């Protein structure tokens, strides 16, 4: 009986310890947020009260989105404003819409969202509009954002970027290509593959879409390997997760450098492959700016009511090839490109 009571006391102690730890972490965060504006100098007090919420669909494990988040964090520090960044743990529009709902309920001074599935997010964005929260869309969903009253879209035109990739590959002699889609359900990714396929077909070649699971690299690599039949002479991936799997698959099949490989978006291993000639090109949409610029713009909008005109601010596509890969590598190591 005595031992039982002791065990119980320990349980309660444990619970209290957890609570204390949670509060401590929470308070530490609060102080950090308050401390940032002091570093930014004059006008800090006014700016520290500006709260901007960012909600994206980027999976936490994707190197692409960690660069966007670095842009967001850097801008928050530079501007001296308070920014929260949220993304669902997997590509999940329902979860994402609920993150937006929660942020809207917090009534921030500005909202930054990526819109991969406009219909699924329509109701949540509508709620943001009716609450009068200034909205900027980034990365995907520019057209839909305009309908939802977004002030500006910061990103690249996906169909055209995919088409650009297809034209480049066809020009280099590709006849039969695979477009590897690692984010099924994302309309922007569908657009990229569509643009790519159209460009290939226009040049007299053909292309097919291969769906893979981005969170399981082994599985994705196996699927790509299985799709590398005799006639395939080009592989086009839609991001670092897909290209890493494709590089692995090509290496395993002994076809590295023999099959044209192109990808969207940069990562250290993509750039090394481009530098070493294992990969023909990488399409850079400079996503650091997609994180950085909206924070700057919303801060200025809140302070002085100014916003760039034109409705869209393209951050890409830019092509990274063997010529300029070495220069870009340094920045990717810092998570800035």
């Amino acid at each position: 009986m005595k031992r039982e009571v002791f065990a119980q006391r320990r349980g309660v102690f444990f619970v209290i310890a957890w609570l204390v730890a949670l509060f401590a972490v929470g308070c530490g965060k609060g102080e950090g947020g308050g401390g940032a504006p002091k570093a930014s100098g004059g006008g800090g007090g006014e700016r520290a009260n500006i709260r901007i919420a960012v909600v994206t669909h980027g999976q936490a494990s994707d190197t692409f989105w960690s660069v966007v988040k670095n842009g967001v964090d850097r801008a928050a520090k530079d501007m001296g404003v308070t920014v929260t960044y949220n993304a669902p743990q997997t590509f999940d529009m329902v979860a994402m819409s609920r993150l937006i709902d929660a942020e809207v309920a917090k009534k921030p001074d500005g909202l930054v969202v990526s819109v991969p599935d406009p219909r699924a997010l329509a109701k949540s964005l509508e709620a943001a509009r009716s609450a009068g929260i200034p909205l900027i869309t980034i990365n995907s969903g520019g057209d839909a954002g305009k309908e939802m009253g977004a002030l500006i879209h910061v990103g690249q035109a996906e169909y055209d970027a995919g088409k650009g990739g297809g034209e480049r590959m066809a020009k280099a002699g590709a006849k039969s290509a695979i477009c590897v889609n690692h984010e099924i359900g994302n309309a922007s990714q569908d657009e990229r593959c569509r643009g790519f396929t159209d460009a290939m077909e226009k040049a007299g070649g053909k292309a097919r879409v291969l769906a893979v699971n981005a969170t399981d690299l082994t599985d994705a690599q196996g699927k790509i390997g299985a799709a590398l039949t005799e006639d395939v002479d080009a592989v086009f991936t839609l991001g670092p997760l897909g290209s890493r799997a494709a590089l692995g698959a090509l290496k395993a099949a002994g076809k590295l450098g023999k099959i044209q490989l192109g990808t969207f978006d940069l990562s250290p291993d993509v750039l090394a492959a481009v530098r070493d000639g294992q990969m023909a090109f990488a399409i850079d949409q400079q996503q650091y700016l997609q994180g950085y610029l909206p924070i700057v713009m919303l801060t200025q909008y809140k302070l002085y009511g100014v916003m760039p005109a034109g409705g869209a601010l393209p951050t890409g596509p830019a092509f990274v090839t063997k010529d300029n890969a070495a220069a870009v590598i340094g920045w990717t190591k810092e998570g800035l490109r």
Partner: protein
Amino acid sequence: MSAAKKFLDRPELGVAAAVVAAWLFFAFYAGDSGFLSSRGTATYLEIASELGILAAPVALLMIAGEFDLSIGSTMAACGMTIALCCDKLGWPIWGGIAAAAVLALAVGFFNGFVVTKTRLPSFIVTLGSLFILAGGTIGMTRLITGRTQIGGLEEAGGFGAAETIFAGHVGPISASVVWWIGITALAAWVLLHTRSGNWIFGVGGAPDSARRVGIPVARVKISLFMMTSLAACLVATFQVVKFTGADVLRGTGKELEAILAAVLGGTLLTGGRGSVLGAACGALLFGMVQQGIVFAGVDSDWYKVFLGAMLLLAVLLNSSVQTRMAEARR
């Protein structure tokens, strides 16, 4: 005295205490950021309601000693079925929903039939269905449409009525909350006040004796599998109607969340004991913690750490309250 004793005997008490503790924590820590507002409350109630609708039949199934891991991909398959029927065949939305319900019942029957016939662990059987359904949904959708998401269902016939019933609002509260309360009440009544309820406890607690005293074990289990699938279909319908479309990945991971809600609510992983009201509280706790973290402004890099820590904390509090109550009764 006996009424008080009965109250202390309830298995939901621990998780209910955890719900109150979580609410107080977020009210104190994130109350000024909108957690306490009606809009904030509505966002976590909505998550809780969808999870709760899954958790009620899942708790019954777990009490009967089985798992259903396939409900996540059943959601994706049902959502896509509705979308395809409306978008490609031009059916009214109700036709699509009916087709999806038939599919769900068939999946549930298949799961139950295989589990009871082969005596294989349901964990493995339904894991198989999980993969088959997930892959099948992607395959069929890409085969028919070449895309992975379908939208534009608001043009389907009868959509207005469906929207009121599945995605409408009572004040700031979404319709799914009303469904949740109704389904929880129904499942709790079945478990505690009907012969079927006794059978469920018997099948999970002492399967051999249950069989000997003539309880139709296979029928009970198959019906429960069909109910979990049907609940998945209902939640898929909510999401399809609310988001006017479907994509092939909806519902991923919901099977584990539903099991978690049931376990938080005091249902044993080994079967034979559990509570429907507890599962409802478990779902409420999960929804509250999930959204509360966002209101608290925790950096998303650490989101899962906090989610895990809060849930662990809830389980500890739950079991400590239960031990205390058990002692008080003595």
